[in-house]
């Protein structure tokens, strides 16, 4: 039972990390209807720019600010030079453009900051908390808890930002209906630039967390692939959906990795590790068959 709980909690906490990436997707999808496949690449770019600035001798706080500036500028540039030119194209074209953007970043970022894997020190150690280890004999990483805390703060900040600021209200208006927002005088293009800036900020937080955990390396771009099932489970348009979806995916994935391979081994023989790679997708797929719009997604009604 203890072991089950340990796996479950570990899974939930890693799910928080997925949710961090998924949040960036949701932000952009909500505000501009673009399914931004490049979010994973943006996470990579953000982590690399933090590490790159650190290597140039900047202190951590300055590096983070610089990285934030880079991400914001990058987001605005993307909006201005790519997406604005694709207005009125079908969503699939926009999606494919973001795949192109992902490749572009994956080529550009290592050219500027170097491609070798590096560690990112945030001053949080990835070790079990002794108190829980002693009392319940469970390994719960300090780092994971901090990550969960950061995610909670991030979500709360975003929620407040959306709910109570002028810009946030404008963002919600745009998300609801582009044309209506435009007609009451909300500058659509500024809003999109802001959204991309916010998505860059979310990518920065995710990049620092993931980078501190696994090292800053190319594999960071694959975080996007981890976030996709979270998204379809939670619904593309829902911030709480991203969090809940992340928790479900994280927990079920870790449990599946522990409990399914032995069963299959008994049935077929051989080694069946690596279920993590596809399990979230199949889970999300099965879930979609029951609820096509995800947990918290908006129900779609088609009219001819």
């Amino acid at each position, binding site marked *: 039972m203890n072991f089950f709980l340990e796996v479950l909690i570990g899974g939930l906490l890693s799910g928080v990390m997925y949710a961090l990436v998924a949040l960036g997707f949701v932000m952009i999808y909500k505000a501009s209807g673009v399914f931004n496949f490049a979010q994973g690449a943006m996470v990579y770019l953000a982590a690399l720019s933090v590490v790159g600035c650190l290597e140039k001798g900047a202190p951590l706080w300055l590096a983070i600010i610089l990285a934030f500036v880079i991400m914001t500028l990058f987001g605005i540039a993307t909006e201005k030079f790519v997406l604005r030119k694709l207005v009125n*194209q079908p969503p699939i074209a926009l999606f*494919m453009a973001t795949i192109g953007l992902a490749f*572009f970043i994956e080529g550009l970022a290592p050219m500027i900051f170097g491609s070798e894997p590096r560690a990112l020190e945030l001053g949080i150690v990835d070790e079990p908390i002794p108190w829980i280890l002693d009392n319940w004999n469970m390994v719960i990483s300090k780092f994971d808890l901090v990550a969960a805390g950061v995610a909670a703060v991030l979500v709360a900040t975003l929620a407040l930002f959306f709910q109570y600021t002028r810009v946030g209200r404008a963002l919600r208006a745009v998300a609801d209906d582009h044309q209506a927002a435009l007609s009451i005088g909300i500058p659509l293009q500024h809003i999109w630039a802001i959204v991309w800036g916010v998505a860059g900020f979310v990518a920065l937080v995710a990049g620092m967390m993931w980078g501190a955990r696994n090292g800053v390396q190319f594999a960071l771009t694959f975080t996007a692939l981890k976030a996709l099932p979270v998204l379809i489970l939670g619904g593309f348009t829902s911030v709480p959906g991203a969090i809940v979806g992340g928790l479900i995916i994280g927990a079920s994935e870790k449990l599946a990795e522990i409990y399914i391979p032995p069963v299959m081994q008994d049935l077929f023989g051989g080694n069946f590790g690596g279920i993590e790679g596809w399990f979230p997708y199949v889970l999300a797929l099965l879930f979609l068959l029951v609820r096509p719009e995800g947990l918290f997604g908006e129900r779609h009604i088609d009219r001819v």
Partner: protein
Amino acid sequence: MLYREAGQFKTTYAADQQIFPIRQDRIAVIALLAVAFVGVPLFASEYWFSAILIPFLIFALAALGLNVLTGYAGQLSLGSAAFMAVGAYAAYNFQLRIEGIPIMLSFILAGLTAAGVGVLFGLPSLRIKGFYLAVATLAAQFFIVWCLTKFPWLSNNSSSGVISTQKLIVFGYELDRPVEKYLLVLSIVVLMAFAAKNMVRSSTGRAWMAVRDMDVAASVIGIRLMPTKLLAFAVSSFYCGVAGAMYAFCYLGSVEPDGFSLDMSFKILFMIIIGGVGSIMGSFLGAAFILLLPIFLDIALPYCADLFGLPFSSATVSHIQILVFGGLIMFFLIVEPHGLARLWQIAKEKLRLWPFPH
């Protein structure tokens, strides 16, 4: 001046409905086929066959398959490489386990197996649409590759799922020289391309396009969504499966599941974006472009580096390649969302009026 259909009267329905209604087009296609079947084998070198022409044809076929699904039926798929993997492994297993089965038959069976798997993973398309579906096809991508790695029976107990394909024997004659393999691949691709061309201008193809443009409207005018969508998945996977079988048997000779990665799926997707979504010819143009671009950059970049005195390491070159790749995708989507095929069409329109544009 040369490309003009004035004076070509159609007196029968058959003539009006034929696949290339303009005489000049017919001549061009016949000339192209003659060059491909006779001219190229006479002049091309071994390197050209095994490094450029064969992969070009194979990827063009895979792109054609994806184009049927995405371009005509409007179902975005990110799992085409997985269906190629199914084809490759199915062909290998049919050869291995059925004594004396002709290679052509095992290719067809491989295509049918891939079609079956494609229908299975196409089932969710009846419930979910758009991006949700695209992500769902990723499930196929990861799950199939994982299965091929983990079930040793599928790769005849070889370590990490690597298979070495059997000999290519067609009608009792063993094909081992690149030029022979090229001719085999070319024949299959030409046949299947014509089949696809005819399919998309038949009622099946029109049903696909109606579903693509608006599925609710399509079902209102009496198109049954389920068979139409599933047929698109089946046909698309069949094409990808045959392409995969040829990828293993005629191109590489030895493949592993991880070779059919998500990157390859994206590559095939890019081929149809750049070539032209919803165009048979676009699949070929896109495949040529995507395959030739890295080769071109490989040659051009060091040369540019010398010219400007920049020290390019091989890592930088590969990064620039990725960057240019991504940049071009965005560029094409912005400048010409309908791809190279559309440019070709515009050129033809212009040519019809040339040299008097009014």
